[in-house]
């Protein structure tokens, strides 16, 4: 059956022979394909969930005040046996919400990064490429400049950031969309333009800010996690859950789009709808995340690349594994950020950039990874 290119006379156009039956022989390797794929999926996801749990425990233990395993255990199990439960307050009121926020923010950044890289077929895409983050930053800066940062009980800054992000989503979409379609090159350009304009406006706003507000803006821009309010935590968690479900539903379509748009459409992918969905989900999630944490760089760009090296490009595996990986990275980076110079803190964006930058350079210089070909 196998075609053997022969050097002898070609027999290509012999009269058509009687059509032989379609080969029914199963190759040994292929019978195990399905089992292998299913096993791999469960193995990888199980491993990632275990790693995430391990990272949560690790992050709970360390900080400005390192806890012993015994303290950690008694606090986690609420068995305080009469002692003053400082550990319980530290863990449940301070560290746990912040760690959870780190997990959510990291997961959101990584999953949107992975989805956008496939959508625009560009390895440098990250959640900030759409221009949403600059809009959010501008909103936050304006809120501070107007002295409205403290309204609505501490939610003022995130609220302004979210409004700014939302307006820039509308703006980017309005520039890029034409006749019901969302061309990817226009989307990228629109993101770059909105980024530039918002940055310029923000420069102007910061130039007239008083030093105290200026410090808050700078800190916010560097990307920081703090102990979040419970509504913010629930809001981000809810957005993340919805986004994961919506993106996973499009994950096979994203696989096809990553290889070629025309080919994907010929296979039944409604590319307009998929592109619009992925853009809107990514944009809203990014806006929500940026409004609570500022701009935390590199998580959204590096994590998907790392996961692709380990697990391949199939977005059905890539998206959830990226989410967990991003969550782990940000949790750990935040623990480092609040530990190394305790009781002071380093903005977590500095840590992620310091990890992410060299790692990205390493990826670029070792040519094994085809996304950079």
């Amino acid at each position, binding site marked *: *059956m*196998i*075609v053997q*290119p022969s050097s002898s*006379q*070609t027999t*290509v*156009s012999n*009269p*058509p*022979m009687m*059509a*032989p*039956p*379609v*080969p029914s*022989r*199963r*190759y040994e*390797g*292929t019978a195990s*394909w*399905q089992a292998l*794929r*299913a096993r791999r*999926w469960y193995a990888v996801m199980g491993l990632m969930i275990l790693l995430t749990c391990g990272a949560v425990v690790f992050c709970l233990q360390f900080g400005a005040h390192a806890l012993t395993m015994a303290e950690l255990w008694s606090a986690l199990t609420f068995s305080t046996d009469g002692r003053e439960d400082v550990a319980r307050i530290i863990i449940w009121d301070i560290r746990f919400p912040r760690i959870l926020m780190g997990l959510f923010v990291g997961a959101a950044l990584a999953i949107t990064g992975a989805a956008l890289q*496939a959508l625009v*077929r560009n*390895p440098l895409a990250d959640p900030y490429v759409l221009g949403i983050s600059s809009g959010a930053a501008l909103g936050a800066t304006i809120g501070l400049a107007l002295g409205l940062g403290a309204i609505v009980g501490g939610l003022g800054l995130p609220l302004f950031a979210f409004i700014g992000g939302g307006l820039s989503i509308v703006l980017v979409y309005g520039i890029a969309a034409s006749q019901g379609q969302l061309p990817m090159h226009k989307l990228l350009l629109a993101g770059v333009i909105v980024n530039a304009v918002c940055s310029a406006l923000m420069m102007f706003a910061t130039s007239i800010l008083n030093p105290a507000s200026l410090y808050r803006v700078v800190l916010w821009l560097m990307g920081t996690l703090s102990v979040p309010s419970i509504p913010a935590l629930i809001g981000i968690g809810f957005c993340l859950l919805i986004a994961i*479900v919506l993106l*996973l*539903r499009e*994950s*096979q*379509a994203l*696989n*096809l789009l*990553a*290889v*070629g748009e*025309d*080919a994907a*459409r*010929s*296979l*039944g*992918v*409604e590319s307009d709808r998929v592109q619009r969905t992925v853009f809107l989900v990514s944009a809203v999630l990014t806006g929500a995340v940026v409004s609570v944490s500022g701009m935390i760089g590199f998580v959204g760009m590096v994590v998907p690349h790392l996961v*692709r*090296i380990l697990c*391949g*490009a*199939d977005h*059905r595996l890539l998206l959830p594994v990226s989410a967990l990986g991003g969550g782990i990275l940000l949790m750990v980076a935040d623990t480092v950020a609040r530990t190394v110079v305790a009781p002071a803190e380093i903005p977590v964006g500095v840590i992620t950039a310091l990890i992410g930058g060299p790692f990205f350079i390493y990826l670029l210089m070792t040519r094994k*990874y*085809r*996304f950079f*070909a």
Partner: protein
Amino acid sequence: MSQQASVSPICSPLPAFEVRQLSFRYDSVRSRPSGDRSAWVINGMELTVREGEILGVIGPNGSGKSSLLKLLTKLVRPQEGTIRLFGAELGALSRESISRQVAYMPQDLSYDFPFSALDMVLMGRFPYRRGGLWNLVGWEGQEDLAAAEEAMVQTDVTHLANRMIAILSAGERQRVLLARALAQVPRVLMLDEPTAHLDLNHQLDVCRILQRVHEQLQVTVLLVSHDINLASQYCDRILIMKQGAVVCIGPPQDVIHPRVLTEVYGCQVLVDAHPDTGLPRVSLPGQDRHQTVAVSGMV
């Protein structure tokens, strides 16, 4: 051997494609005078593709070959005219139902993402995916894997299943793409330049696989190619296009004629008989023979 092509293909009550008065252009510039038809990529085309035949589409650059394939897969919609796929109006069919009948193998895909060959072939099962609450991400079932395996056996790429698509040779990659198209279990297979950039050995591979698949699965094949000789050897009929219209259509012996080719391509060519098959073979004239067209060995 010449009577081979004249054997009428399997008669079917309905042709694979029936194209009537088809016109298409990419931009919708309204400023042009209405009489000017030069902007049309496809210009009043009439075509019937019989079920079970291999139809080769040749013509100079920009003659609308690739656009025709895109129109027939509904990747673009025509401004005028109708296309029927096995009797059904193409415009009224859903993308999904078209993709269960027509497989399209495009010329340029991006191989930057580290997909394995098996990932790639399984993408061909997208039209048959089943969603649902418990299969949110759309994993393939046993029958999808069976179809993928069957397709990979057909194109002899089972041993490449877990290799990354980016590190395969051009010929292997083309066979993987062919397997992806076959995994769709199509009734019509459309190929845009399947042998471009392949060396002779791999060209032969792809062509033989194509011929075998055609014989075994009775699939209708539409093949766009710049390689007239290849089309002449492997196609039942050949469609020659120029400026978005049909110049002529028929068995290779009838349409591959120096006068036709000279008129279509604007340069002089030699046509003789292939030493093995007797089918027409085209060559470009030697340097000192630009003025004289030799016609020899025509069947």
